[in-house]
């Protein structure tokens, strides 16, 4: 596969896929009927990264098929549905290669993400509403970062935890494929947009994938990848926020008088740094012991 190249995100279009070669591909869909076909076709001359299904329903209303077992699936669902059915689904989910995203719409979803993670199912929160329950978010974050027990990854916390570097900004939109340095979005004709919103709006930066080498000099691309600077020109709350380095203003629409987002995200930052410090100390101890031997 093409190294260091963006992963291509597209709906399934057989003709388009046939034109691509050696690309890393994510297929997005809202339909479970053709999962196996997508897998087979894409993997012919490309590499399927995953199939992401945006499903307007509960997890427990999905009928999982045995034939999906080997297919990497990412599911965006409204909720898990009834706990009872979810626990009955667990033996099947355990066999799947699946990551499940729940929306921030209901407080229960935050708890259910913990339940899933504690049972070894990779999961994540996605943000479908600006009405955020920051307390629940903080609880989930505490769980994702501080829980001493083995649990599956919860996004975006896991992403932040594993990629945070003190000396660089971290954009957790990567988790949702909205980072043009890592993902590009293609329409059926192969035109390229920088993120899902641009794709929807028909705003394309390149006509096709053969032009990809010109992307770094593309003005729209430069604008997109440096748009964070507007916060500094405008001196927004975000530019003065302690959590800037891991948030980059993602919750700007939720900012309230209590600065809930800043407080919660700052706690997250502290937690992440603490976690890394702990790992560092462990490493140092191990090295010391090795040296003594």
């Amino acid at each position, binding site marked *: 596969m093409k190294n260091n190249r963006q992963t291509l995100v597209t709906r399934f279009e057989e003709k388009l896929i046939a034109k691509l070669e050696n690309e890393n591909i994510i297929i997005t869909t809202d339909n479970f009927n053709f999962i196996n076909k997508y897998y087979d076709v894409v993997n012919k001359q490309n590499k399927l990264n995953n199939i992401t299904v945006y499903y307007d329903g509960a997890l427990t209303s999905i009928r999982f098929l045995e034939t999906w077992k080997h297919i990497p699936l990412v599911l965006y669902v409204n909720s898990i549905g009834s706990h009872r059915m979810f626990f009955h689904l667990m033996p099947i989910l355990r066999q799947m290669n699946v990551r499940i995203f729940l929306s921030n719409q209901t407080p229960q979803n935050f708890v259910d993400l913990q339940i899933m993670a504690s049972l070894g199912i990779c999961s994540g929160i996605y943000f479908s509403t600006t009405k955020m329950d920051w307390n629940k978010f903080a609880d989930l974050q505490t769980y994702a970062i501080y829980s001493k027990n083995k649990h599956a990854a919860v996004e975006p916390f896991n992403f932040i935890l594993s990629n945070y570097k003190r*000396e660089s900004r971290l954009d957790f939109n990567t988790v949702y494929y909205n980072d043009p340095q890592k993902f590009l979005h293609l329409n059926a004709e192969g035109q390229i947009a920088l993120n899902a919103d641009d794709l929807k709006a028909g705003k394309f930066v390149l006509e096709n994938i053969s032009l990809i080498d010109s992307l*770094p000099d593309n003005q729209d691309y430069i604008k997109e990848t440096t748009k964070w600077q507007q916060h*500094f020109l405008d*001196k927004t709350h975000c*530019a*003065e*926020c302690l959590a*800037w380095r891991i948030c980059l203003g993602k919750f700007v629409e939720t900012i309230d008088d209590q600065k809930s987002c800043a407080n919660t995200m700052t706690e997250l930052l502290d937690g992440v740094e603490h976690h890394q*410090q702990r790992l560092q100390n462990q490493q140092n101890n191990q090295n010391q012991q090795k040296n003594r031997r």
Partner: protein
Amino acid sequence: MAVIIFKATEKCNANCIYCGVVKKHQDIVMDCELLTSIFHKINVYLLKYPREKVAFTWHGGEVGLLGADYFNTAYDIVHQQCPNTWDRIEHLVQSNMTVLNQDIIDAFKKLGITQIGTSYEYYDGIRGLGKNRDSMAYNRRFFQGVNLAERNGLTWGFIYVVNKKSLQDPLKLFIYLTNLNLRSSPMFNKMYDYDKQEDSLVINQDEYADFLGAILPFWLKHRDRYPSAKPFSLFYNSIVEKRVQMGCEYMGHCTSRWVYIGPDGSTAQCGRAGDFGIMKYPKIQDATLEEIMFHKDRDVIDTRQITLPETECKDCPLWGICHGGCVLDAYMDKREHGHKSPNCAWVQKFIYKYWEPITGIKVEMYNKFTKKA
């Protein structure tokens, strides 16, 4: 390492309120002939001192106004004049970033420059372009420069000049500025009053100490996050880790290390001395680099290091980190070299009012600092 603060031009496209250079209004650009002779002299110097290195800092004015050709020419000259010593010349650059273009960046890279030093201001009307000091236009172009540099793999670090407006909310300012560049936190410098005017933005010694004091507890708590924020990190290294690493103003051994060379070949002790027009040495046209570096007028700096601990700084526990401060400041204040710097006031206040009570770490007298020639 010898540090050359090299100003091929003192022209600038910006009009920053606290800039000493702008006030000199020198628009000339050093010609090729003089540039050639300077590198010739550097070569002679380096050949004589085979273990020595030179940090050649391109300074201005705004170096970007020299254009890419100038740097490309400089590159050719360096390699002609210093065929066996060029690899002991490290090129550094200070720029306001607002006029950089790809050609200039390419030329920088050719010279081996990997990092750009710059400045940034939060408050409007302090750094800016044109008569009206347009800060928004300045900042926009600043970011364009930053983006260009970063796309080319260059890093950048910056200085923030603490002024009256900065006192409004030091911590907020600190967070904003450290957010701006996560790779390298700023150096917070005190604003100087070049003209001794009743300028409303200049802060006094107390105010600067209070500014730093307001940030110190936060910095201490998050030291690992902001390891390079100066002067906090400098104090920490000096006091806690006993690594004397303060800036040149506090090292007391700038004697034969630094030289300023202006567009007309004039020389002085350092960049600031050049701006102030004090501590001047012969023009580079009239002397070898060695003669300027070891000029007898520089002896006052060494002498001061011997006399101060017996006089104005006697028994001061802070001597080991401060060394009486910068000789230029002392001279500007009293018109004599032998005194301690007026910055003594902020250093003392910062340490005794903030550092010691907050950290619980007492600054011990340590006079054993060994002065290097």
